[in-house]
């Protein structure tokens, strides 16, 4: 049990600056997820915490020790790898016992801890098998078991679910969450899957090009993205973006584009008034677009044409064209529309996002 502190962490390879000034405080018992597209530096950051990569600049503390120069074995961490990394020449039992044997635990305690972990993970009857006799899900459980028998201060997960099929992934995700609640150990989890990030993380760190974009609780990232990248990355289907021009008429601020004109709600007028006459990016989530009747207030609704209909059962995704812009709307399954139908849509004005065109920061 320990907190993990990253201070101005940097990693440079010969030509690539992979991790740039990452500052992060991971609290004791917290489950933090690093998420981002491939090449964003999330795995490199994790590997630096593990001690598998040299730190170019900055500092990593686990508990109250600076671990920069400690070899991986002395950091009191355990890691689960994407390809499981089970030792193929050892049985499941020996795989799980390896770390304890290396630390010279007495035999009886090793046996007891392995049994305990095996029971938690439901792999009790597999202990005598070799890794190649196991299915993907079972291998993943063994890899997790190998990590938990050591009772480390920190768990590191490097995309542990990526090699599993979709159904199993959802199941293991739930199990990991349950496991974390039971073990109460600090965990750092790397994934490129934003659903995993949102469901597992107490807090989520979004990274891109080596920079931390935003750190926050999952719903905070969703409702208050710090910039356009986070807004587009978190959420599926992704947030809709449109270039708009800001205008002021009769004391109200309007966002205008080809085909629609939206009145900015009164509480945000002051924030947006300085951008009068300028271009901004408007962001709106698919579920914040609703079909409405023709009589709806003109200051938040507009006409569109249905382009694609994707019925998902519990909801329908409508790809619509508004002038030159396409948007996705998530609507109730009772809505009956066909391709090329005209449709009147309204936005939820209090849930609009505005981003600066150049800095891409949220306004």
């Amino acid at each position, binding site marked *: 049990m320990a907190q993990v502190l990253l201070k101005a962490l940097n990693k440079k390879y010969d030509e690539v600056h992979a991790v740039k000034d990452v500052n992060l405080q991971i609290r004791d018992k917290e489950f933090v997820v690093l998420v981002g597209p491939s090449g964003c530096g999330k795995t490199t950051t994790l590997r630096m915490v593990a001690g598998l990569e040299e730190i170019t600049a900055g500092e990593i503390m686990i508990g109250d020790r600076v671990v920069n120069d400690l*070899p*991986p*074995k002395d950091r009191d961490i355990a890691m689960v*790898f*994407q*390809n499981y990394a089970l*030792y193929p020449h050892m049985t499941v039992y020996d795989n799980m016992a390896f*770390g304890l044997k*290396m630390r010279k635990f007495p035999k009886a305690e090793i046996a007891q801890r392995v049994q305990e972990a095996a029971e938690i993970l439901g792999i009790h009857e597999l202990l005598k098998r070799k890794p190649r006799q196991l299915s993907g899900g079972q291998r993943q459980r063994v890899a997790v078991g190998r990590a938990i028998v050591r009772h480390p201060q920190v768990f590191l997960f490097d995309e542990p679910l990526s090699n599993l099929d979709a159904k199993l992934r959802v199941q293991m995700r739930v199990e990991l969450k349950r496991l974390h609640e039971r073990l109460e150990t600090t965990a750092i989890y790397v994934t490129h899957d934003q659903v995993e990030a949102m469901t597992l993380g107490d807090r989520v760190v979004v990274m891109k090009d080596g920079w931390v974009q935003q750190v926050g609780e999952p719903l905070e990232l969703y409702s208050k993205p710090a910039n356009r990248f986070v807004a587009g990355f978190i959420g599926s289907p992704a947030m809709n973006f449109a270039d708009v021009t800001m205008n002021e008429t009769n004391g109200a601020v309007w966002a205008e584009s080809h085909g629609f004109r939206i009145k900015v709600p009164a509480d945000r007028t002051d924030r947006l008034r300085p951008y009068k006459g300028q271009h901004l990016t408007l962001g709106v989530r698919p579920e914040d677009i609703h079909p409405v009747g023709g009589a709806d207030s003109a200051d938040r609704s507009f006409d569109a044409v249905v382009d694609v209909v994707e019925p998902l059962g519990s909801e329908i995704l409508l790809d619509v064209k508004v002038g030159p812009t396409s948007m996705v709307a998530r609507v109730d399954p009772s809505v009956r529309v066909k391709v090329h139908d005209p449709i009147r849509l309204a936005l939820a004005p209090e849930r609009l996002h505005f981003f600066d065109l150049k800095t891409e920061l949220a306004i």
Partner: protein
Amino acid sequence: MVVERPWKRWVYFYIPLTVFVIGTLFPFYWMFITSIRPDAELYRSWRAVNNTPFWTLHPTIEHFRDLMAKTTFPIWLWNTFFIAVVSTMISLFCGLLAGYALGRLRFPMAGTLGTSIFVTYLVPPTLLFIPLANIIRDFQLGNTPWALILTYPTFLIPFCTWLLMGYFKTIPKELEECARIDGATRFGAMVRIIFPIAIPGILSAGIFAFTLSWNEFIYALVFLSSPERKTVPVGIYSELIRGDIYFWGQLMAGALLGSVPVALVYSFFVEYYVTGLTGSVKG
């Protein structure tokens, strides 16, 4: 499943395979049949009425007895074995460490070093024995087993290094990283995790090295002179051919006995050997 017509299977598979097997095994058969043929049959004219070149009706072990009693063949066998084993062990030890370093560690010039080690393997022994002869003389190692034990690694180490480097590269590096996090040092992870997994590769490198030194001829011919120091290939060649007289029976008996250990080693490890060359570790 596609049903093939039987005649196609014969034409494209069984017949070519049979021809190939006969072509490969015939020399061994010839070696065997010659070694048990009495001298009277061996030196009979080819055109004699009772000539039976492909079989014999009077098998004899006389040649083997002569080989054991009248020549120093058992000593050659022991020399060859001793030299092959020691030089294989030296080469495997160096090849393991070098192969691991080149396959796994990141250090400057690793690629260049790897290539240059490979290039030394390409230098033909027929050129290299001249400078090596100088060195052997300077260290006064001529006519001792050490002349060969220390020179064979010049081609065995590059060979082992390359084979093992390739094998190590097929082992996922996460295995080792995981071991290091689990509490092993780099060296510990290498010895406890990587080497056991690399056993097929290590075995095939060992078998290859053993065979190469067992069959080696040039260095053994140049560096050893007295009959009781010689290895099997050189001994047979230099002691059983006197001027233009070929002791065919003993020659073939010696060749047969000389190839038995290698054949045994291969047949024991053939499965390991194949996986070693194709390299496969599944996590």
